[in-house]
């Protein structure tokens, strides 16, 4: 039985396979679920089950965001059900369920996890030296401090940083401003 399957997105311009989708979304979905479950193993289990559903209806999706949104929504229900069937219902779990049930809170968690995922992916793509420079810089270290920490010259530090930002800029791209329209 062949498991992987492929769909065509963006009016025939892009091929997207189930495995690719799994690789892109599985980790962040686990992190999202973990926020409410505080147990990464259970989180992985629930996300696994949700992906089986995604696989079943993979052909019906039209864009990547559509898949992701479907995943977040079904994961939300799966987590609520899991928490509800937990033997010990205490105030703490009650609170988690209510958090998930509330749309604004749920969507805030989507923003949080999505942002973290974009940042992580962007930095992960960088070559090792640039990655270190950026990570140290994000920790608040100055160029001099980074140079000392990494045992490289100040100029090299600056070059790494400049190259890293060039790549980060291109990987994050320009965002078409839709928000102002959405907020009216």
């Amino acid at each position, binding site marked *: *039985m062949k*498991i992987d399957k492929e769909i065509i997105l963006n009016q025939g311009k892009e091929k997207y396979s189930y*495995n690719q989708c*799994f*690789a892109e979304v*599985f*980790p*962040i979905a*686990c*992190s999202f679920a*973990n926020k409410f479950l505080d147990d*990464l193993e259970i989180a*992985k289990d629930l996300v*696994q*089950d949700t*992906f*089986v*559903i995604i*696989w*079943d*209806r993979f052909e*019906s999706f039209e864009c990547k*965001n559509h898949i*992701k*949104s479907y995943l*977040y929504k079904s994961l939300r229900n799966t987590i609520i059900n899991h928490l509800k069937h937990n033997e010990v219902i205490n105030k703490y779990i009650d609170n988690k369920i209510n958090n998930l049930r509330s749309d*604004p809170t749920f*969507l*805030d968690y*989507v*923003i*949080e*996890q*999505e*942002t*973290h*995922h*974009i*940042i*992580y992916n*962007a*930095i992960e793509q960088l070559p090792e030296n640039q990655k270190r420079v*950026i990570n140290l810089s*994000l*920790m608040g270290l100055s160029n001099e401090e980074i140079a000392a920490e990494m045992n490289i010259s100040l100029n090299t530090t600056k070059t790494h940083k400049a190259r890293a*930002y060039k790549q*980060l*800029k291109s990987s*994050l791209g*320009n*965002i078409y*401003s*839709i*928000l*102002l329209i*959405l*907020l009216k």
Partner: protein
Amino acid sequence: METQYHISKLIAKYYLNTISKEEEKELRYWKNSNKANEKLLNRVLDEKNLSNTVEILRSIELFKELDVNHQKISEKYIKRINYFKWTSYAAAILLLFVGITYLIYELSGNSQEYLINQLSENYKPGMNKSLLIDESGKTIALNKELSIISGDSSLSIQNISNALKYTSTKANSKLEGIRMKDVYHTLIIPTGGEHFLELSDGTKIWLNSESKIKYPKFMYGKSRMIELEGEAYFEVAENKNKPFFVKTKGVNIKVLGTAFNVSAYHNEDHITTTLVDGKVSISSYNDQMTLEPGYQSVYRKDKFEKLKVDTEYFTEWKNGTFRFKRINLFELTNKLSRWYGVQFFFDKEELKNIKFTGAVQKNKPLGNILKTLKETKHIKYKVSGNSVLIMK
């Protein structure tokens, strides 16, 4: 959630110092528009929070998880399909014991026949139940009367015995014009089963054993797209605005209001489409043809062949009779295994090609037809468990 994705991107760019003036303005606007947004921004950019997420993302072993996932998918889907095979094996093993006991006690009697009769008794129609998989992936065994009404009460789904019916309860005119996304249901017919299905547009479909059909629940789309594996007889409700398509593995059929039979079993090397009434056009990746009533298209090895046929031979199964005219023994035994749940084995390859003509009542035990086949003097057979060995 497009807004959420957009904001996430802005915040990420802001964090990585790659945000443009315009984008920063937009983010500031979002932040200032609501106290909660500001709080959220701080939470998202909190170093400890971010590094917690990063740590989790790093810890996921993707390849391992992907393996686990493929395992889960195949377990779930193969289980669904094979469940019925396993139960029939179990029944066969049980029967083997019954048969052996019987042989010991009545060695002189006609034990083989008894065994066949016993065996087929267990594969009586209606013994194995069809399965319905709804849009959420939930599996419903159609073993009792079932009645579901869709959330917006625009559709009712009813199953009585082996007939499943979708009825649109609201006037169609209300739904026309509103392009709503449709969802799909799947109906799986096990070995020894058959099911009648009426779709919400009035199309009637008779499904044969070991078939699987996927169809739109509401029929909202511009066209009516059906996927079929196995065999089905269609009476398509005419609707000029919504063409009806049947997709099988290898062949696509475009229907122009009509009655026809499609047989597309994965374990057979050909797909046949038999047209009783109306008009269909059939295409594969490399070829296409149009059929007139009384004609059949056979798709084999990437090629179409058009034959003039007596359509009754290909549609009578839905009325409880197998009728066959000059068909291979192999093809005949395939039909019998799907209905009676037994496996056929051939002592010599050439036996598969012996041609037979005749008719069998589907509600009769398997023994009857085996006896009839033997009477032609072309073959002999031996039964053990749920296997039948065909010999010269």
